[in-house]
């Protein structure tokens, strides 16, 4: 995508600059120097947003019928985004992804929840069930690059024609057309920072302690077995050979205690994994970090790294690279989020980059809900309406409803599957909307998890009672975890389907109101509908979306 033009902007950082003193990285990037921050950053907006250049309402959104066939063109060769309806700021879209080798395409209806299959599978759930059970019918799942690079190694996945094929998506495709799915991979950066020890971010990339030298319990030294002629090796097992570029970091690499993941590496891994949507490597800073300079540096670095990712991306004809909006919790005019957004806008308007979609990052890390929704609100107001918006690492059912109201299309979170493994089911009703099946209350409770739920545990003739699940959890019967995982994913899928339905009928405000009132029933004993205990952030966020609860 316009490699020459990139040089005009910041472009890939010349090698000798990579070891500059930290303060240089906090300098406002050149391409942002002439940005007018007196007006909110936004581009490509449609009604009900404000138009890009003045305070008049933006033009109406152009919608297409739900079953419009996809068109992939040069400007977006691997993703086709259709908007079918808007209800307030909430939108019902379809994301068509370029079908993987030999597959029929499986469209992604939005809003969508993507279950997390960290290591190329969902815990206790076969892809057959996940894709063909109508209660689940997940069109897209997420896999983690960091984990896939460790086991089985991306080189092996590449040999298999990518993770789709490795997971069995190509076998028997004739007989089971519905058995196919899309994949999204993260950049790996977040895992490096959160899982690996002693991680440190430099301009070059993320440095972290070599996990092979410190095998965790039960690893048996078989990590990264997928690399030819080697059973244990490193992700980036050689130090840079460029003699002009000897630095302290490189010396660290030489003794193999530390490893380095550069933006180029992240993209190479993701190209080898072959997911339909891949993520630019961003400089992740914990959202509760207090050092403002660190955030500033990270924001600019995320822009620079995006350029390097674009440059390194070898498969833009079939894989969609999403940049990630960073900038901490600074939503102020001209603040870090705006600067990051302005950077992406600059690249798009200048034709340097044409991102097929945008991700909102740096959230779901322990920040306050008030900060959280304001960042989501600002990003949705800024990002172009003709592209999908993906909120990373979110979330809870309530978050999905609020953020969909603000205009988010895609979500991923380990919560529904992880909590299932602890014996917790997601259910409608008063917050927190969970049912702890290991509790004594469930021992003799003969109700199903949720009346009307279409999952295997609740629906049809099976009707597995809470008491039965309690009993199976007591003896750690695998079926308990399997059924709970299914229920929780079915709950999330049914939530996003209900939201989509409400948007298509232009009744999202009523849906959101009902949902919130179902979760917060405070005051209901006085014979009203309750809702006195609706948290302020929910009220404010929905009000920003034009919904009065």
């Amino acid at each position: 995508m316009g490699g020459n033009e990139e040089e005009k902007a910041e472009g890939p950082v010349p090698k000798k600059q990579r070891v500059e003193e930290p303060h240089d990285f906090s300098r406002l990037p050149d391409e942002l120097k002439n940005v007018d921050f007196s007006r909110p950053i936004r581009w490509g907006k449609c009604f009900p947003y404000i138009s890009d250049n003045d305070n008049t309402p933006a033009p109406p959104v152009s919608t297409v019928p739900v079953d419009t066939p996809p068109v992939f063109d040069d400007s977006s060769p691997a993703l086709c985004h259709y908007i079918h309806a808007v209800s307030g700021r909430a939108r019902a879209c379809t994301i068509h992804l370029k079908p993987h080798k030999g597959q029929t395409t499986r469209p992604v209806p939005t809003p969508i929840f993507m279950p997390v299959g960290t290591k190329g599978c969902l815990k206790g759930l076969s892809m057959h069930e996940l894709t063909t059970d109508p209660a689940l019918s997940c069109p897209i799942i997420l896999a983690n690059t960091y984990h896939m690079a460790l086991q089985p190694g991306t080189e092996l996945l590449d040999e298999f024609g990518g993770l789709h094929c490795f997971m069995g998506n190509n076998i028997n495709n004739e007989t089971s057309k519905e058995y196919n799915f899309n994949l999204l991979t993260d950049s790996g950066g977040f895992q490096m920072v959160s899982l690996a020890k002693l991680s440190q971010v430099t301009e070059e990339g993320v440095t972290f302690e070599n996990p092979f030298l410190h095998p965790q319990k039960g690893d048996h030294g078989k990590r990264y077995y997928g690399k030819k002629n080697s059973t244990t090796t490193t992700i980036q097992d050689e130090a840079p050979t460029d003699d002009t570029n000897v630095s302290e970091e490189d010396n660290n690499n030489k003794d193999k205690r530390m490893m380095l993941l550069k933006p180029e590496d992240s993209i190479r891994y993701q190209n080898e994994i072959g997911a339909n949507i891949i993520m630019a490597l961003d400089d992740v800073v914990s959202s509760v970090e207090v050092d403002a300079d660190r955030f500033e540096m990270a924001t600019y670095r995320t822009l620079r790294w995006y350029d390097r990712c674009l440059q390194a991306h070898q498969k833009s004809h079939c894989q969609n690279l999403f940049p990630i909006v960073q900038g901490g919790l600074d939503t102020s005019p001209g603040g870090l989020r705006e600067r990051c957004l302005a950077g992406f806008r600059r690249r798009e308007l200048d034709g340097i980059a044409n991102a097929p979609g945008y991700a909102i990052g740096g959230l779901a890390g322990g920040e306050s809900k008030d900060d959280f929704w304001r960042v989501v609100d600002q990003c949705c107001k800024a990002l172009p309406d003709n592209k999908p918006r993906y909120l990373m690492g979110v979330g809870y059912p309530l978050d999905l409803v609020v953020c969909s109201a603000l205009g988010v299309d895609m979500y991923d979170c380990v919560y529904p599957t992880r909590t299932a493994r602890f014996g917790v089911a997601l259910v409608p009703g008063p917050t927190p909307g969970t049912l702890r099946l290991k509790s004594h209350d469930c021992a003799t409770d003969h109700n199903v998890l949720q009346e009307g739920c279409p999952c295997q545990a609740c629906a049809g003739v099976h009707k597995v009672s809470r008491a039965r699940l309690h009993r199976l959890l007591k003896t750690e019967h695998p079926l308990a975890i399997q059924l709970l995982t299914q229920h929780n994913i079915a709950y999330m899928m049914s939530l996003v389907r209900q939201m989509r339905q409400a948007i298509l009928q232009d009744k999202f405000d009523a849906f959101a109101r009902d949902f919130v009132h179902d979760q917060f029933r405070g005051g209901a004993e006085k014979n009203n509908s309750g809702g006195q205990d609706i948290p302020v952030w929910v009220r404010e966020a929905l009000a920003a979306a034009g919904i009065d609860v």
Partner: protein
Amino acid sequence: MASKRDKCSASSPSSNDDGGEKAVRLLLHTVDGAIPYLTPHLLETCFPIEQVKDFLWIGIAVRDACISPVMATPKKDTDETKNKKKNKPSGYAFSPTTEPDAWLLPYTRVTVPTFDPCQDSIRHSHKNIVDVTASNDHVMVWTEFGRQTLTREAYDTAAAEGLQSHASVTLFDACTEDAKAKRKRASLERTNAWREETIKSHASDGTLWASCLVAAAKEDQDPGVTQQFESIQNALDNKSVNGVAFVNWQTISDASQRVSVLQQCIQRIKNAPTTTTLAVLSTNSLEQVMECFQQGINIIGTNLPIQWAKQKKAFVCDVGNWKNRKDPKRPKLEPSSVDADGCFPVDSSETWIRDANPILAGCSCLTCQQHCRAYLYHLVQTKELLAEILLFIHNLHHMIGLFRACSQSRISGSEEELCRHIQDQIANNNNNNELQGLTKH
């Protein structure tokens, strides 16, 4: 209750229209009354009833399936403690009204007190006690929830009414081989008495199997042993039972002894009608399964497909080409690649790392249809539960294939050949040097 049973009348134990007494059936042990790894969706997709009903029956043990929490009876405590303990079960006990999981209803279900009484007691005892104690009106059963008392009445109610089983084995009190003579005698007497009582109170609908203590049967001089077989023979003559279930046979460690004991047992009821079901409730190895088959057993109980999945092993023994075993073109397994159970240990070999083939070429199970060896290897390496699920689906599917082959060979009179074919594959491995019993007749 009766209507639920009727759903499956085509494969009920009293029916002969599905290959009749020649069929060899797998009695798959459930755990807590459920088949591990198989959600309703997977069970229906991978093992649809119409395809497996002749070969796959489901064994449900009252020991683990029918145990439920007992709620504390409200005491006149202070309000504070009352609220605190309101919902806490005071303990666990057998509940004869426990119903089977709805998705198992279409499958033929056989109720037993427990599959492996001695194993159960070893597993759950903190001391080195292996005996299951009993008195004349109950057996003490070791469960995940401590020792529990199971009376003959409660057991019979659970089998007939709660679990709505198609067949049930009369309550037994098994003891280990090394138990004292007095203990052995008592266990035989009780088992005999309970059998008679159950027969008396049981409607003669042909769904009762007489339990037969195998380990004790070795001492053929014992009057209790003689009485056991007389009583069973009587019940068979009266048609008050239509099957005999051999209990604790799997605990005999010596293969040749196992075979001869089984032969003796069958010999002692040789006057039974030819339609009599002969069941061995538990087998712990492929070798034992084949021994039972060779001795003419119809129902062979096991949890091997579950055990293998847990141990990350894939059952790959060739069961299909036994008729052409002399054909040089027949694909040959590396002798070293399978263990004594005809399994390939997925985690201890690196040969599957980049292998794009299914576990077993030509296998029609869901796992082999959709996934390759490299993916399974990856799932095993990353300790994913899905590895066990996918291995179990294959193992059970392939085990059913073995039972299908067994049934066919019994009809065509080529049991010897099939046994030798299986033996050839598993004989050369390091772990197993005791296969003599397999071909002894």
